[in-house]
Structure formats: structure tokens, C-alpha cells
């Protein structure tokens, strides 16, 4: 096997079974790739080779004994540094957790390892997952492997870059307002956000608890289905992890898409969209129509209120969730003469500018005298946005939109203007607020060679339908349209 072998979860499995490669060799191959490119990309913050090789050796021992291979046996995985890994530093891209070592594993991590995956390390991200470009990391930005003068998107920029550059076969990201789908679009790979509650959030360090989701970056749709099969399901440690049965994604995604109704909301193709993005997404929709899907025009009238709603709901929850960083129990502590002085100095030094900005905004929106005007109103508009989706899914089996209005922008281009940065999430936050699943799939490139993403939303717990369309799109050549 050459280091450039285009691995998939299936080809890894076959190669291991045929003894063409050992899990240890495969792990070493991926660490060699990381050695070759991480200095340039800054995708990984922490590597955990002892843990990865120990897992690879368990897989190899199983093969030697003729045991049945677990579903992700030997698959090299990268994990966004907001997911707790026992004994492995977990920073959230923040100075305040620079030396934080969790005492337990997130459920998603436990499930991946129980399925045989080898965790290579922890990936860079915007601080506490707050950002759309990965430039808010305390450990420096990640570079887009497709065009290294550009951002990889955010907040899961390190995970997206790692998979796009071939430094991991699969990576976990988290998505609160677009943080899986938008970097997937910018780096040109499939990026899956499951339904709220489909995957346990236990051990995910919280940003906005009513919005946070965990999902995979992969190089193809069958791999996304395979990883979702491992991650999905109820967890006694997360009461919001829904007890809804998990379908057999691997077989569901191969079903024909003929006759499916694809809804196209006019509201997503208006002002602010890059003409090349619009052109490719339209071509992608036309391809799905040629596959027998029926195009349905939709109106989702509250779309233009989604960013405003999101930045109240998410920051309000963040201001509450981030109150726990006070220097007492974990992470950074800056000494102070009094307890209050210690809290304030620790938080002032430990948090970066975007996190402070969002804590301020969220605290303001929840503060006495402003709660009704901001937070309560935003929760009501959130209900209207969810209603837009419910009505759309009466008319359509899935909704197709662009993932982001533009391709990846240049490093530094939007850092001085927080509001302009927020607007990069305009097509993704809607589904986040509604709780529905969404996937970004590659949909060709601009003339300059920058990847474009097409987004597919499914109804609640409709991951199978969403992945089925993504798979048909992939098979028909949509990724390189």
C-alpha cells in the first residue's frame, strides 16, 4: 500500500482482513502524513500516538485471533478539541483550558473506540467553537489545504482540514450554527450534522446546549453512514440523546432517489450569494432532477431573521455555560487576593476576544430589563423558523440550499468585522435553530479552484433520507460538477 492510497472505511477493512496492511502500519502511515503537513496547516493541536497505537495493536491482535472486525476497525480518526478525551489534553482552542486533562471520555469517543477506531489526536478549532474561520483559536489559525492563504472555515476547521488533506480518514466536528457544514464546504468534503439529540453530547464541552451537535467529516457518503451508525443512539448520560431507533444507514443510502421531492427555498438564493456558488448549486439541483427528483419551490419567510435569532440564543446559552471557567476546579488559574479577583483575572486572561464578545452579548440579552426584548423574542422567532421547516417538510422530502454564500475567504479578511463574519453562517443557522439534520456535500469548484458546498436538510431524524440523496449525488458525479 502506498501512502497516497485513497482509503475508505471499507478499503481499510478489506486491506486489514486480507492482511495487506496492519492497523499499526496504517496508523504509522497517517502519523507520517501528519508529520509532513501539520506544521503548515496547524490542523492538530495534540497527538496521542500511545493511545492510537494501543488501539491499533488491539485490532491487529483481533485479526491474528480471527475475531470478527468491529465496524471501524483500524480507522484513523481525528477529534475536534472540544470533545473530552480521558488523559489527553482538551483545550477547546482556549488559553483557559491550555493544560486541562479530562478525567473521562465523551460518549462519542467511547463509541468510536469501542467500534475499533484509532484516535490520532485533537484538532484545532475556534475558541469554544465560536467562529466561522478558525481564526479565533488561541493556538493560531488553521490553513485551508486546498488554498493555504485561505481559511478552512470554522469552527471545526482543524477537523475539516485534517480529512481534506488526508491526515485522518474521518474526523469528528461539532456544529452549533454551521461549524461542521461550513468548513466541510470550504475544504471540499462531505460534512454531516445529525438531528439534535441523535448523537449524545455527553463529554462535549458545551457552547450552546440547545444547538450543539456532534458529527463526522468524511471523504465519501458511505463513510458518513458508517460513522453515523456508530455514533447515533440514546445515552443514559445525556437526557437529550433521543431514544429514536437508528436505521441501517448503510443500506438506506443506496436506495434510488427517483420521485423524492426536493424543496428549494427561494429565500436562500437572493442578495449576497456569490454568482459562482449560485451557478454550481443550481447545476447540482438540476443533476438531482435528472436523477428523478421532483423540484418543489419553497418559501421560508423567516430565513432572514435566523442570524439575529441565533446570535441571541447561542450567546445567551454560552454566557451561562462559560460561567464555569473561574479558575477553581480545572484549567487556568490567575491568582487573586480574593475569590472574586481570582475569577475575574482568570477569565480576563483566559478568554480570547470573540469569546468575551459573545459572553458580553449573551449576558446583556439575559440581563434584567432586556430579557423580554432580546432572549424571549429570539425564542419566539426561533419557533417561527422551526415552523418554516415543518411546513417545508409537508411539501418536500428534503431541502436543498447552498452551504455558504461564498467560497473560503482569505485569512484576515473578516477578522476586524464580527458581524460580517457572522453572516457567513446565514444558510446554516436556520437548520441549527430548527433542530433538523443537514449535510454539506462538495458541489464543484469556482474557476479559481475553491470548493463549493451544497447543503441538504432532512426532517427530524431523517438522516437516512438526507444521506440517500447525498449518496445519489455523489454517484452521479455531483461532487465534481
Amino acid at each position, binding site marked *: 500500500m502506498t501512502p497516497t492510497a485513497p482509503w475508505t472505511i471499507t478499503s481499510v477493512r478489506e486491506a486489514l482482513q486480507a492482511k495487506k496492511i496492519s492497523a499499526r502500519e496504517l496508523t504509522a502511515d497517517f502519523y507520517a502524513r501528519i508529520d509532513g503537513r501539520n506544521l503548515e496547516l496547524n490542523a492538530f493541536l495534540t497527538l496521542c500516538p500511545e493511545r492510537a497505537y494501543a488501539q491499533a495493536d488491539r485490532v491487529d491482535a483481533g485479526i491474528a485471533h480471527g475475531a470478527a472486525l468491529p465496524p471501524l476497525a483500524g480507522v484513523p480518526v481525528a477529534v475536534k478539541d472540544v470533545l473530552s478525551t480521558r488523559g489527553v489534553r482538551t483545550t477547546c482552542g482556549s488559553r483557559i483550558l491550555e493544560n486541562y486533562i479530562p478525567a473521562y471520555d465523551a460518549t462519542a469517543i467511547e463509541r468510536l473506540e469501542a467500534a475499533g477506531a484509532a484516535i490520532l489526536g485533537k484538532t484545532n478549532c475556534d475558541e469554544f467553537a465560536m467562529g466561522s474561520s478558525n481564526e479565533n483559536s488561541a493556538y493560531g489559525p488553521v490553513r485551508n489545504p486546498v488554498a493555504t492563504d485561505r481559511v478552512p472555515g470554522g469552527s471545526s476547521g482543524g477537523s475539516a482540514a485534517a480529512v481534506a488533506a488526508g491526515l485522518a480518514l474521518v474526523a469528528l466536528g461539532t456544529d452549533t450554527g454551521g461549524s461542521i457544514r461550513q468548513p466541510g464546504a470550504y475544504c471540499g468534503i462531505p460534512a454531516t450534522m445529525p438531528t439534535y439529540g441523535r448523537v449524545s453530547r455527553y463529554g462535549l464541552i458545551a457552547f450552546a446546549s440547545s444547538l450543539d451537535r456532534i458529527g463526522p467529516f468524511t471523504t465519501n457518503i458511505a463513510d458518513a453512514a458508517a460513522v453515523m451508525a456508530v455514533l447515533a443512539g440514546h445515552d443514559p448520560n445525556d437526557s437529550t440523546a433521543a431514544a429514536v431507533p437508528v436505521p441501517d444507514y448503510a443500506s438506506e443510502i443506496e436506495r434510488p432517489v427517483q420521485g423524492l421531492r426536493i424543496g428549494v427555498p427561494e429565500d436562500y438564493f437572493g442578495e449576497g450569494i456569490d454568482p459562482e456558488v449560485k451557478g454550481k448549486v443550481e447545476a447540482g439541483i438540476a443533476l438531482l432532477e435528472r436523477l428523478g427528483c421532483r423540484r418543489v419551490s419553497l418559501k421560508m419567510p423567516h430565513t432572514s431573521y435566523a442570524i*439575529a435569532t441565533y446570535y441571541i440564543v447561542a450567546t445567551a446559552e454560552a454566557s451561562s455555560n462559560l*460561567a464555569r471557567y473561574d479558575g477553581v476546579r480545572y484549567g487556568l488559574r490567575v491568582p487573586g487576593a480574593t475569590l472574586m479577583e481570582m475569577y475575574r483575572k482568570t477569565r480576563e486572561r483566559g478568554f480570547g476576544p470573540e469569546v468575551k464578545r459573545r459572553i458580553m452579548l449573551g449576558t*446583556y440579552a439575559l440581563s434584567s430589563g432586556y430579557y423580554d426584548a432580546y432572549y424571549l423574542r429570539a425564542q419566539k422567532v426561533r419557533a417561527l423558523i422551526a415552523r418554516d421547516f415543518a411546513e417545508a417538510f409537508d411539501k418536500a422530502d428534503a431541502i436543498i440550499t447552498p452551504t455558504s454564500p461564498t467560497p473560503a475567504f482569505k485569512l484576515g479578511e473578516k477578522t476586524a468585522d464580527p458581524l460580517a463574519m457572522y453572516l457567513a453562517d446565514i444558510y446554516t443557522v436556520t437548520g441549527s435553530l430548527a433542530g433538523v439534520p443537514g449535510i454539506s456535500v462538495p458541489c464543484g469548484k469556482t474557476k479559481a479552484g475553491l470548493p463549493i458546498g451544497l447543503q441538504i436538510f432532512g426532517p427530524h431524524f431523517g438522516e437516512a433520507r438526507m444521506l440517500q440523496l447525498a449518496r445519489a449525488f455523489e454517484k452521479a458525479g455531483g461532487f465534481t460538477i
Partner: protein
Amino acid sequence: MKISREDVLRVAELAHLDLSPEEVELYGSQLDEILSYIGKLQELDVTNIEPMTQSLPREFAPERRGGSAHAGSPSGVAAEGESNLREDVVEPCTIGGEVLAYAPDAAKPFFRVPKVIER
């Protein structure tokens, strides 16, 4: 929308952030711009709209009353009156030592902090 310097200082106080004078200035103007944008939410008539307090529709979000697990439900979804919540049974915590070992300043079995009680 105009956010005053006093507003910024009041919010920073609530959020336990010790902002520098430059930060007070910067966040004041940025919050002003962001809140002006968010002001567009006032355009909508939300009378009689219930605020969305659960991220999933009711059919997927079972009532949070007590009761047994959902295993008996044919759909696998907890039926009304059942709960996603575990039985309220004490389980041992085995990671206390590790948690304290990684803490900034621990004196087993406590976290040590500056004195908070005056004699």
C-alpha cells in the same frame, strides 16, 4: 441603539470579566453594531407565538416526568409520561482522584481557593 460605557461596565461586572479600558471601548462599539442588526427581530409580530424552549418537536421530546425507561415502547420512543431520565439511584464516582490531580490547586478532597470567610 446606543450602548453606553456604563452598560458595558455593568455587563462586564455581571459576566465577571475584568475588561481593560481599550476592551470597554471596542466591545461597546461592536455590541452596538451587533445589537442594531439584531434589532430587526422587532419587525416581526410575535403575539401569540409560544417561545421555543425544546430543540425537538414534542413527539421526539418526551415529558420529563419520573417513571421508567422507554424500553417497553414499541416505537422505541418514550411514550407520554415516560422519561428519558435515569432512575434516581446513586452511582459511585470513581474519577475524583483524577479530577483533583489535574486541578490548579487541590488539597484532597477539596479544591483550595483564596479565603472567602472573614473572621
